[in-house]
């Protein structure tokens, strides 16, 4: 995985800058000076101004491309009523699209780190070297080895993990808690998960909803790598989020046909009218 492509954990420290720059580009302000004027972002000669950071981020996340001296926007992959959500989901989409076991994209780290957390944690310390080492080892185990221009493997060091935390928080994957010790819960944004169900239904569904397994497959190809337990259940962080959506009647899990069931690990399904016993099909309340 030696590419000249920049590494997302090196270049995106503040993902909020990306959507500011993207909106300017999308509005037709495609040259550096125009973007500066439109956004107030600052350009620095050393290439480290907020403008440069934003543009590098957009290029790395596949949200823009360079054409001579202009920066052109790539279209967003989603079309919900919430522009910010579409933007965030597209960031994830672009990374996940290239995150396949046979050929990990260089930026797969964004969703791989989260996949590991979804499988192992609901709460973590963002500065824990033990945690980083575990994730890093897992990267190697699954064959994900991002390398720099010299061909050297890039380890998940504190700075990179710090940048990843900023990205994951912005994307609505993790949630900061009180205190100075940089602790987070692993908590997918319910709006994002709901939007993913709707998008999956639109692309893969039969008009009323879609099979749970189809949803999992869609997620893994289009938005997030979501692990299942050995029993074929959503792990607790994702299961809890789906549970809450069903409880609030934003989606429902029903028994429909004979397709495989995808269960919910560690949640009180019995108390949720929105989740049927042996549910294998997701409906949306459009």
């Amino acid at each position, binding site marked *: 995985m030696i590419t000249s492509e920049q590494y997302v954990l090196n270049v995106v420290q503040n993902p909020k800058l990306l959507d500011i720059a993207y909106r300017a580009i999308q509005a037709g302000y495609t040259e550096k000076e125009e973007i500066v004027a439109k956004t107030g972002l600052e350009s620095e000669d050393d290439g480290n101004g907020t403008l440069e950071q934003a543009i590098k981020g957009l290029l790395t996340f596949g949200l823009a491309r360079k054409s001579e001296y202009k920066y052109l926007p790539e279209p967003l992959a989603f079309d919900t009523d919430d522009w910010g959500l579409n933007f965030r989901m597209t960031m994830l989409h672009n990374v996940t699209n290239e995150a396949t076991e046979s050929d990990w994209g260089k930026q797969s780290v964004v969703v791989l780190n989260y996949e590991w957390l979804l499988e192992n944690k609901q709460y973590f310390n963002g500065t824990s070297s033990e945690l980083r080492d575990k994730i890093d080892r897992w990267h190697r185990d699954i064959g994900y080895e991002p390398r720099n221009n010299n061909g050297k493997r890039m380890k998940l060091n504190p700075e990179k993990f710090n940048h990843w935390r900023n990205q994951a928080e912005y994307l609505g994957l993790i949630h900061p808690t009180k205190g100075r010790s940089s602790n987070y819960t*692993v908590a997918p944004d319910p709006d994002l998960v709901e939007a993913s169900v709707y998008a999956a239904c639109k692309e893969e569904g039969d008009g009323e909803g879609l099979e749970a397994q189809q949803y999992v497959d869609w997620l893994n190809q289009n938005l997030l790598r979501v692990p299942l337990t050995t029993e074929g259940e959503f792990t607790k962080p994702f299961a809890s989020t789906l549970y809450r959506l069903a409880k609030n009647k934003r989606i429902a899990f029903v028994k429909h046909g004979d397709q495989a069931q995808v269960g919910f690990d560690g949640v009180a399904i*019995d*108390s949720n009218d929105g989740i049927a016993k042996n549910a294998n099909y997701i409906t949306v309340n459009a």
Partner: protein
Amino acid sequence: MSSIQQPNGSLCPHYLDIDEEFLSQLSSKVAKVRSEDKDLFDFTHHRITVFDALAEGEVEISEEEIYEQFDRHRSKNFVTVIEGNVGTGKSELCAYLSHRLQDDGRPVLHIDKNADLLTIMAEEIPDFYREHIGGELPGASNVERLQKHVRQNRDTVASLVVAKAALNISDLDDTNVDFTVSERDQLEEFVRDKLTAISQRGNLATKVSFVDPGEIENFSYLNVFEQKSLEDAAEAWNDAIWEAVRDEYDTPSLDQLLKRVGQDFGEDRPVLVFEDFSISALDAAKLRDFMEDDSTENNWDFIIAGTQDSTEILHTQTGLERHEFYRTNRPNSSSVLFLNEDSCVDFIRPYLGYIKHSDGSVSYERDETNAIVDIDSPASSSTCMQCGFCNNTFRDLFPFNEGFLRRIYRGLDDGDQRPRQYVQKVFNVLEDYLEEFVDSPASSDELNDLHNSRTVHDDIYSEESVRQLAKWYGEEGEDSDALVVDARFPKAFGFDEELLEDLPIEREAVSTDHGGPREAWVIPKTKQRKKKQKQKKQKQKKRREPKPDPEEEKIEEVKGYLDTWRENPDASAAADLDVYMRTAFKAALDHLTEGFVLRPDGELEYLVGGNNDPFVLEGQGVPSRDQIRIDPADFTTSDLLALLRYGVYREMSPRQADEAELFGAVGTQLTGYAREWRSTIRSEYLESNPNFFVQAAQNREFEDLVIALCGVAAMLDDPWKEVTAERIQEAYSADDLSLDADLKNILGDRLVQEKQDDIAAFMSETKQIQRLVGEYFAASDNVLDIQQIRERLSKAPPVEVLDDLKKGGIQNLPSELRFDSSTSVKDIAFAGYNLFDALSSVAGDDDAPAAAGFVNHQLRGINVSNVEEYIESIRTYDDVSPDTKEILGKFVTYSQEEIDKVLSACMLQDELWVQKGTHASIHGTLTGLKIYEHELTGILTQIEFTGETTGDDMSEFVKLSGHYTEGL
């Protein structure tokens, strides 16, 4: 080879093809079903003992003694009244007496609780007559006709009856019957509804009375009497309507019909059983009179069962003297003599055994009172014999065991420990098992509302089905700190043996009361229990072991009530636990909202006081505006245990409360609540608060206000700068924003002190305003999303946003919404509101455009270096006065840049002045007033000019220099 398979994750063979209707009959609360199925009744009936209702003290009477009171040679009516609370065995006693009397050859008419009056009179009594006497009952066809009409032509019947009833009423004294068309329509509709009620099954009962006193009061068209009380008026209407019905259909009343039937039975005393005596006051009174009639022509035996309210009408002097009154339950209690904790298993045993009795799998040895003494061995070819899974201790009870059934009974509220409640609860659990909804009957939701505070080791809470198995099936172990579950039960329900490896459970052979040792799962009740082997090794050390922590002891003490609390947080049994759970939820939300701040990494908070919770629990009422709803049922008990642990430590040793442990178990779910809470507060008070702005400005948003506040602060800080997104970015980053000095001076002259104070108060909030901007628009410490600010500014000019603020809406903001104890959003918004009021006092001040026009006129096109040269020259001349020289000296201290700035301000003032809108007007005024107050303006006013003008690009100074030099 037998096709019978032992249960192994599958149902008991008896339940594989069970008929739902059969089960429903078995647990039916309708005694008529039981009185018609003698086999079922005999198998399941448990001897009933009741109280003599009229005796002093508790005098017990058995069902046989009651039965013996019935004398077929008696010559008058005989009435047995069985009173008692719902579900306490009244109907069962009725069924018992019915069977005994039928066995004696007595004709028994059993009226079930769902029968309606017309059905009784038109169908049940005539059928009974036809069956026992033969032929048609005289007068019954008229009732049948009435019944048919009521069912099919209700409108016509109502119209007919109302017409006649109105005439009947008008015949009475002191009435004023003069209905309008509308009143007559209403009355017909009223009667039609009543007719509907009397012809609907199940509603007979209380609704047969046509008119109640309350209805006389409520419906003016019924109130046609001049002097009658409401009760008398209702009775008059009832009589009039019934009279109309009977006139029209020539129907007998119930008592007349019974009298007629009884006479035809002669010496064969018929028995009438009213399973639920709650018919109308009108008919009940007539029936009562008939029952009390001691004429020897009457020959009915009545068995009347009902709650005391419904049988009250029978408590007349005569009735109390002549009838027999029994009561099934103790006063002020629903407990009955024939069901208690000791007898509850034997009580339910035949109900469950009946399912397996048809092929001889289950039969009992009984005593003379039908009580079960022992279970027989299964018949040779029966299912139980072929299956061989159960032993005699639970064969009839499976899928339950004795302990489970006893715990169901014990778990019922005191008021629910009644036969019917108990039977129904057991069968509801059974139904969940049969539907295969649950891992085992112990996991049935039906058990949730039962009290059972048994606990297991904390680690087992993660395997809910095992915890529930232990809780309901477990028996106390030898060492009393473990629950022992017969290993056959987990096997039958398909529990994986691997659980034994993952959980602190041991499989051991334990001795039993009923024979040799058996394999069992030994499940520790508390976290403290040590495995047996370890216990032996540690026996010596035991004395030196420290006492468990008080926190751990507290957790063990209250955790048994988690299920109770989960079902009902108000349950008194769980009151202690409730305190810890609330503490845990509140502290968790505090942590996950970073101290109840409204945005991640934000500063704006909502103060949640010590006595307030940011949530209400499900079932505890409607959340207030600053609360979310949390449903304990949304948590697994394993998660609730984690919360309890955290709550106990938070209360007892806050420093040891382990957030990592709590959030490691239930962090995602709690985060969901934290996000909901933030969203609730923000939308309720800020972002979707419709009361921030006046009605005409409902398109404004709180974010507009944030920009407006910062924009106006920037404007007051420097009124010569246009309020743009960039200016707001600048103001956001400024160390300090303060009221411009010139502006302060001139506003000091123009405004009363109160308004000046309002401006000062607003400027004192600028730090908080900067924080607000940061909350809503910052991408980093130094970067604002100025595109968004620009868009908002274009639609919402700052001063106009302040103009749109609604005082009442701001007043209603809670002071808890704040940055810190001294600054609330309410204060900030009020400061903005008052500021607008102050600024609008100076809006349109004519001095503003005049000053700008003057200065612009004087200075435009000026080149400072030229002017300096001219002035130096002028100052050398003697005829120039010293004052003029001094003024000119001051003027030359101004740089070209400074003068350009003033000129630029003049331009801005001019542009704003011609624009429309409050924002431009006030900003234009402030810009001009600062020009007016500016020192340079003062200088210019003191220099003597020629008064001539020469064109746009020439300044008066150019001419001034010319004036002096030419004059020399």
